[in-house]
């Protein structure tokens, strides 16, 4: 029974582990580009959670087999759920677009402060305020 639970929930647990790895990178690392990488790891883990939920054991990809014939072979086929695929497919492309905005911001911050480390940026900010 325990092994059963392990096999049927292993996907979710590893996905959660990956999410937490991304989350940990995001909150514990000071480098802005590393943070963007952490955000990407988190994001991909969420994608995997969705796709895991859409999978049917023994199913095939949702591309109809012999749709016109409608024979018994076609009736037997079980398809995985196409809906999460659609949601995630568009989310991946949006994800890279937003990632590029994040990277552009990091580049501009590097140009303005000369560093990408969060603590150095806040130190420079504090020095500027003290100088005023």
């Amino acid at each position, binding site marked *: 029974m325990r092994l059963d639970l392990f096999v049927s929930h292993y996907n979710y647990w590893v996905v959660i582990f990956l999410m937490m790895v991304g989350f940990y990178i995001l909150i514990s690392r000071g480098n802005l580009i590393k943070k963007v990488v952490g955000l990407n790891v988190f994001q991909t883990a969420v994608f995997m959670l969705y796709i895991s939920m859409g999978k049917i054991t023994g199913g095939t*990809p949702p*591309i109809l087999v012999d749709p016109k014939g409608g024979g018994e072979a076609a009736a037997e086929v079980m398809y995985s759920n196409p809906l999460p695929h659609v949601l995630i*497919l*568009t989310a*991946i*492309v949006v994800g*890279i*677009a937003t990632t*590029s905005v994040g*990277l*552009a911001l990091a*580049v501009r911050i590097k140009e303005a402060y000369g560093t990408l480390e969060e603590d150095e940026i806040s130190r420079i900010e504090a020095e500027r305020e003290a100088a005023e």
Partner: protein
Amino acid sequence: MREEIIIRVGAKFLAPFIIMFALYVHFHGDYSPGGGFQAGVILAAAFALLALVYGLEAVQKVLPLWFTRMCAALGVLIFAGVGVVTMLLGHNYLGYNALAPDPTHPEHGQHYGILLVELGVLVTVFGVMVTVFYHFAGRGRSDS
């Protein structure tokens, strides 16, 4: 990387096939995995490869920045325009059945609608990816 002959020849050899593959992925997307999103990214990857090997200037002669910017906007326009056209034809926004040439088979309109909409996605994704790449790759240039 200008001196590396294997990379230069390899990139030149690969790029047309990548572009061809992108078009295949796009137009065969109704029957196999693929569609506008993937095709746009693959098409952009072909130009990114050329830019990495031959330098940005050489690629921008073929595919200037104003063109990719225009593509990015044009795709959204195509997508939204299909919706407006179907509305003018008396159906819902993005109700592709309106596009059918033969009113007794309204589902044929779906083919046209999906083809046009996917084209819009392709154009936007391609334009956006190449524009973003140009900006990242071109920014270091004026500095050194």
